[in-house]
């Protein structure tokens, strides 16, 4: 399971073809193609409501596709069982749960995909400690997650995804609400993963400190891919293709103005 046959190396890690999905009666993805190959770091960009979160959640099987095809590591999603190859960082939930939990307990829960009957062996504990070290949270291992700042909380969620030692990291807005100091820590952790050969798909609002790591950017707009190629190089997020910003000069566009809130 760990070793991959040479033939499989060319296979896309994620292959999404003609994906459509709706939330309620609202179509959110309207025919999205997304291919991520081994070793790539792909950023999914777009305005609020453009479908980028729905796209990653459908990749991990949490939003059912109404049509289209999805395969992970060359296996159709319906047959896919090797979840331990994937580390997932969901969009940050608003609050901690009703019972306190330590940082180590939360990170350990990320290791469950690799354990049998939930028993943590020595190797599992070591992996948890490594994940904590990667996001620089070892000294906070026994602190309650309720006592953490937003940025530290995000680091814990990323450590939880790293604890399984995944080949593919999927992150939904890992930088949302994270201050610059914490963004740097996260960028460093991600750099280590990429150096070790991980494949990454992440939803971002702006490239920020991650910019040098990104190998490709896919921009969504109203549930369609409007850009798939090198990350936008220009200064600031104004230069992003598909960046929706309510400016007077946007009226040059033939299309109606979309703020992303209602469309």
């Amino acid at each position, binding site marked *: 399971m760990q070793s991959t046959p040479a033939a499989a190396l060319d296979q896309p890690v994620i292959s999404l073809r003609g994906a459509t999905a709706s939330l309620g009666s609202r179509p959110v993805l309207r025919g999205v193609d997304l291919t991520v190959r081994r070793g790539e770091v792909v950023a999914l960009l777009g305005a609020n409501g453009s479908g980028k979160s729905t796209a990653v959640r459908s990749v991990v099987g949490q939003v059912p596709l109404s049509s289209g095809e999805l395969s992970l590591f060359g296996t159709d999603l319906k047959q896919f069982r090797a979840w331990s190859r994937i580390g997932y960082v969901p969009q940050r939930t608003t609050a901690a749960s*009703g019972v306190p939990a330590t940082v180590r307990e939360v990170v350990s*829960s990320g290791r469950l*995909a690799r354990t049998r009957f939930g028993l943590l062996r020595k190797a599992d504990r070591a992996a948890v400690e490594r994940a904590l070290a990667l996001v620089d949270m070892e000294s906070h291992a*026994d602190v*309650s997650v309720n006592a953490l700042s937003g940025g530290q909380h995000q680091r814990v969620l990323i450590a939880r995804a790293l604890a399984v030692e995944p080949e593919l990291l999927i992150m939904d807005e890992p930088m949302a609400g994270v201050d610059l100091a914490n963004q740097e820590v996260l960028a460093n952790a991600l750099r280590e993963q990429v150096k070790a050969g991980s494949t990454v798909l992440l939803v971002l609002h702006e490239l920020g400190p991650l910019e040098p790591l990104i190998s490709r950017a896919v921009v969504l707009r109203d549930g369609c891919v409007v850009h798939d190629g090198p990350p936008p190089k220009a200064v600031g997020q104004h230069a992003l293709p598909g960046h929706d910003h309510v400016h007077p000069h946007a009226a040059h566009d033939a299309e109606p103005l979309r703020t992303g809130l209602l469309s």
Partner: protein
Amino acid sequence: MDLLNYAFMQRALIAAALVGITAPAIGTYLVQRRQAVMGDGLGHVAMTGVALGFLLNTSPVWMATLVAVVGAVGMELIRSRGRTSGDVALAMLFYGGLAGGVMIINLAPNGSTTNLVSAMFGSITTVAPEDVTAMLILAAFVIAVTIGLRRQLFAVCQDEEFAKVTGLPVRALNLLLAVTAAVTVTVAMRIVGLLLVSAMMVIPVAAAQRVTRGFAATLGLAIAISLAVSLGGTAATYYVDVPSGATIVLIAIGVFLATTALSAPLARRRANAARAAEEVCTRDDVKVRAAS
């Protein structure tokens, strides 16, 4: 300890110990996912089972278990669908269960609503020898699930979407959790009563988490508190003629108030210790302290 000389008292204390362990064991998970009210609902639903047992002349404990399990599965299905009308559906289930119990007991030849009162509020004299066997079996199941599967259940209650992507059988674990909560309700029925059972699932957990930082520690301390409280409360009813359920719940609330009073100085001492352990303040540290 002359109270141990009486067989009914021995049975009551065994039953109290089983309640003491199982109620907070499942309650910790319910509180974690903010579903504390579930035990209360299951208690109402189990009332129909008690009345059915009376009507059909079978063991009320097993009948209550059966009906509560069916109710629990129904509640979990409503919850997992995530319908906006979910709480209305739950209310139907709760009060339907209670009304059903009252209706059925009055249909029974010699039955009247008073037959339900001991099931509602608990009474140490009602623990029959065959109940002890049933409770031991049911409690063994609850402990096996809540302790044996604690990592999986923790993950599911902490972050359901993440648990799914981890490949855990989330739907099965949710159903198991609901069924285990139903079983716990009937374990607690005799001593604490169906209307007060939820208190023992929630209050010891609330008391424990005032002074703990981790999940395992909360689970352990909640069980310890609850075990002491339910044994103490049951023993007290031997000396003073008061109902066991109410006594146990009131003592538990007392413990909760005590740990709440204790938690403020404890938190201050921890903060001081943490400050002393660090030489230089970083930007992160300032943020943590400001938040707490």
